[in-house]
């Protein structure tokens, strides 16, 4: 877990439209948790309620730790049927 590598960030489906991007990289020194990643990349947008989060394709929570080289992904909540 080296902080020299950036964090790779993905926004899925309608979160791309809401955040204005589908992917980003973030200097790992700027974020210790998943919530920090969102805050750094979307400082003016609150994370929607029940947004799903994953670190390296494993379900994560806002306070889950992140490090350089990790892939952090955000997915919109879906309830419709």
């Amino acid at each position: 877990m080296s902080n020299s590598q950036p964090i790779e960030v993905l926004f899925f489906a309608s979160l791309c439209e809401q955040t204005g991007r589908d992917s980003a990289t973030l200097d790992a020194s700027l974020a210790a948790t998943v919530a920090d990643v969102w805050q750094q990349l979307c400082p003016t947008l609150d994370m929607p309620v029940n947004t799903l989060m994953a670190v390296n394709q494993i379900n994560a929570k806002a306070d889950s730790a992140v490090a350089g080289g990790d892939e952090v992904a955000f997915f919109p909540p879906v309830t419709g049927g």
Partner: protein
Amino acid sequence: MESPNTPYTLAIVNLSNQELLRYSRHTMLPQFGIKAQEKLKNARVLVLGAGGLGSPAALFLASAGVGTIVLADGDTVELSNLQRQVLHGESDISRAKVDSAADSLRAINSDIQVETINARLDGEALSTAAASADVVVDCSDNFATRFAVNAACVASRTPLVSAAAIRGEGQITVFDSRDAASPCYRCLYAEAEAGQENCSTQGVLAPLVGVMGSLQALEAVKILSGNAAAVGRLLLFDAWNTQWREIRLSRDPACPVCAPPTP
């Protein structure tokens, strides 16, 4: 006992000659065979919602030969439903969705039993219906129902095939409370009234519900036939970009629904 319906392949086969022919494209699959088809025939599946997801899910469960399908929905058919809810037709407008749906399912397969509940199930009725089902297929359209269905399935250890679709995005996973390691819906989503969105305010791409609802029938058929289902894997579909992603789910040790009670 001689009967025109008694197949002569094996004495223990509980499928008629007509059924053996009808399901021959199933039974010739090595993962399936006659045994799995008999399991489907003996199975009872609860489908919650006869709308966008429930339409393809119930249609494929019926055509695949699930012996008893219980459909629950309290809505009536509206013109704006017809864009994607393929169980219903123009002549069904204003009818109860479960009545319209039952007619469609029986037209496809008169060998199966279709039971209808013209209500949004909750409370004791939901618990009873979930406990008596071999698989529950959640095709509902709101968080409140989804949390209630999840709690009922965890309590009765009934496998739950859960999918959702809105706009151009869909999700599907399987929760199987018979498996001690399986997460539940509440491990994934925190209970909250906020963030409520539905297809009537957000819109939804018609074939997207076909994709997700058909996948629900697929997972249900795999569970019933003794094949492995997508437990612990959340599949997420971006219809506009035709892109799938997958995330691994694990049980939340602090989950208020499925975590074992602390002594």
